[in-house]
């Protein structure tokens, strides 16, 4: 957050930027193929998601830094982007961790960690009441 007298970086000669854009574009194409190729290996568990997210993050960093010029611009703009990403992580992270740590009855039936799907869930026929096993006196 520069004071009122500060000067923004002067726009440099832009010959280099064309080459920069082209290199970033090639990298983006390559990373796209990479993420698609890696997905075909069906990496198990959360690692597949982690790899996919990692590559996506790298691609978006390239777009943000070079196509959107954050690489050579003021801190205020970078701060805005980084701050919004912090809050993305906050919403996704805390909400997901809630679903992951709930008492089983609190999650939708049939979902991860919840009770298995019963016959009345999702509009099936009502169950036949269990026969009296003679427990009542």
């Amino acid at each position, binding site marked *: *957050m520069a*004071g*009122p*007298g500060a000067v923004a970086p002067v726009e440099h000669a832009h010959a280099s930027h064309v080459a920069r854009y082209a290199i970033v574009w090639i990298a983006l194409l390559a990373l796209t193929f990479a993420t698609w190729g890696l997905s075909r290996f069906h990496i198990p568990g959360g690692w597949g998601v982690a790899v996919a997210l990692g590559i996506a993050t790298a691609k978006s960093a390239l777009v943000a830094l070079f196509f959107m010029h954050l690489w050579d611009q003021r801190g*205020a703009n970078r701060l805005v982007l980084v*701050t*919004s990403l912090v*809050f993305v992580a*906050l*919403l996704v992270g*805390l*909400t997901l*961790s*809630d*679903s*992951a*740590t*709930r*008492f089983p009855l*609190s*999650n*939708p*039936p*049939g*979902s991860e960690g919840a009770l298995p799907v019963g016959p009345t869930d*999702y*509009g099936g026929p009502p169950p036949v009441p269990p026969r009296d096993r003679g427990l009542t006196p």
Partner: protein
Amino acid sequence: MNPSPASELQGYNPRNYLNSPATGLKSWLTTLDHKRIGVMFLVAVTVAFALGGFFALLIRLELLTPGPTIVDAMTYNRLFTLHGVVMIFLFMIPAIPSAFGNFLLPIMLGAKDVAFPRLNLLSFYLYLAGASVALYGMVHGGADTGWTFYTPYSTTTTTKVVPILLGAFILGFSSILTGLNFIVTTHTMRAPGMTWNRLPLFVWSIYATAVIQILATPVLGMTLLLVAIEHAFGWGIFDPARGGDPVLFQHFFWFYSHPAVYIMILPAMAVMSEVVCAFSRKNIFGYKAVAYSSLGIAFVGFFTWGHHLFTSGQSTLTGGVFGVLSMFVGIFTAIKVFNWTATLYRGSISFTTPFAYFVGFLFFLVFGGMTGIALATMSLDVHWHDTYFVVAHFHFIMVGATLMAFLAALHYWLPKMTGRMYPENWGLVAAVMVVLGFNFTFIPQFLLGNEGMPRRYFSYPERFWALNVASTAGASVLAIGLVIVLVYLLVAIRRGAVAGANPWGSRGFEWDTPSPPPPENYETTPVYTHGPHEYHEDPEPPRHAAPEPKHV
């Protein structure tokens, strides 16, 4: 290009934003002047407040007796829903930022306008559009879901919930544009010498509010849209019969709505930081602490939303995490309360109407805040959730703190905005009525809630009768006090005594302009050599030292 002559500063400024550059309805509706836009917002939110207050009075009338009094249960559900929707989305969120923030922010920064005047005007029209859509829904019966629109009821109710959702969605954009404008203005339009550490504290808090508006409102927009879509088309992701999780809605809703309460309180704190300095004739104690605590509230407020879900079925671990995080927010509010109080110490206090509202604000903020911390304790909340204890807590903050701040702002800045003064005697009388009426309305509600009276119920057991009557009586006094305020303010705007540039002798920067200010705020760009509210023995020389800087 010269500073305003002293004579102009004493009287009513003849060439001001109200009559320049043009008069007439069209010039107002197409204005780009932030002051005019602020005034239009002020009128709009006051009308909205009257509407929301009318719903509140109907609610309190209904609760005068245990059984049905004036309406049936279904109508009562719509009344409290509309009371909440109107008060929160049409009054509390926009009132201080869009009315006073718009008017004052550029003046306090030494600027001629906000960064994006056309977006500013757009934010006003979006407010009107959102209000109209919501009003359409209200006229056709309104919704009965509560302002919180919990699923699955909100996705299955046959009432007119979709227009109200869409109205709130549009209002969200108004809020976003205001926040965007304020942030950019603060970053880029400060006059020479106005460093971040010389900003008026009003600006710091409004800036923090704007950050919340930018980050939180889109999530609300998406959430309301999802409910509207599910209601209209059945694309359910919240429907438990189709594997949906209704608590997920609550996570999304409160991710916005908890920071939203800080959108409501931070501007109130902004006003109070100015008022306390002006009427103690003393600079704030601990400027940096107060300034940074605003950012602290804005930031930490985002980490606490789950305390609204303690009894909804979220995991105990998550509840515990949110409970602990919720405690931290209290720290920043406490910092402000201590610093405001310390500002009073050894100040030269003038007990004017704005100061009276400040005193009310302080007490109600402390008790409202402390009951908030108590509610954030999960084990206590199990007992209090969805009772009148919660209702009393948030009304202590919203009415006791924010409304008092709004009234303080009206009185403090009326001379600046209109060039005229209100009658001080009436001001104090009304302030006493408002504060007393407020106490009688909401203290009984703490007691009711603690004894178990649920919120949003239109009937109750007889043992709650007396306290409900007391609450309604208090509400009547509060309403009369507010009507008195409205009447004498309207009279003062037309026929009040001429106030001059600085009737309070305040050293806030906005008082350096004539009253009412000229359209361009400052004839020459001011140069700042120190912060606001510096009340020393020798007065500062005029700060309009240099002629207009050259444009390239």
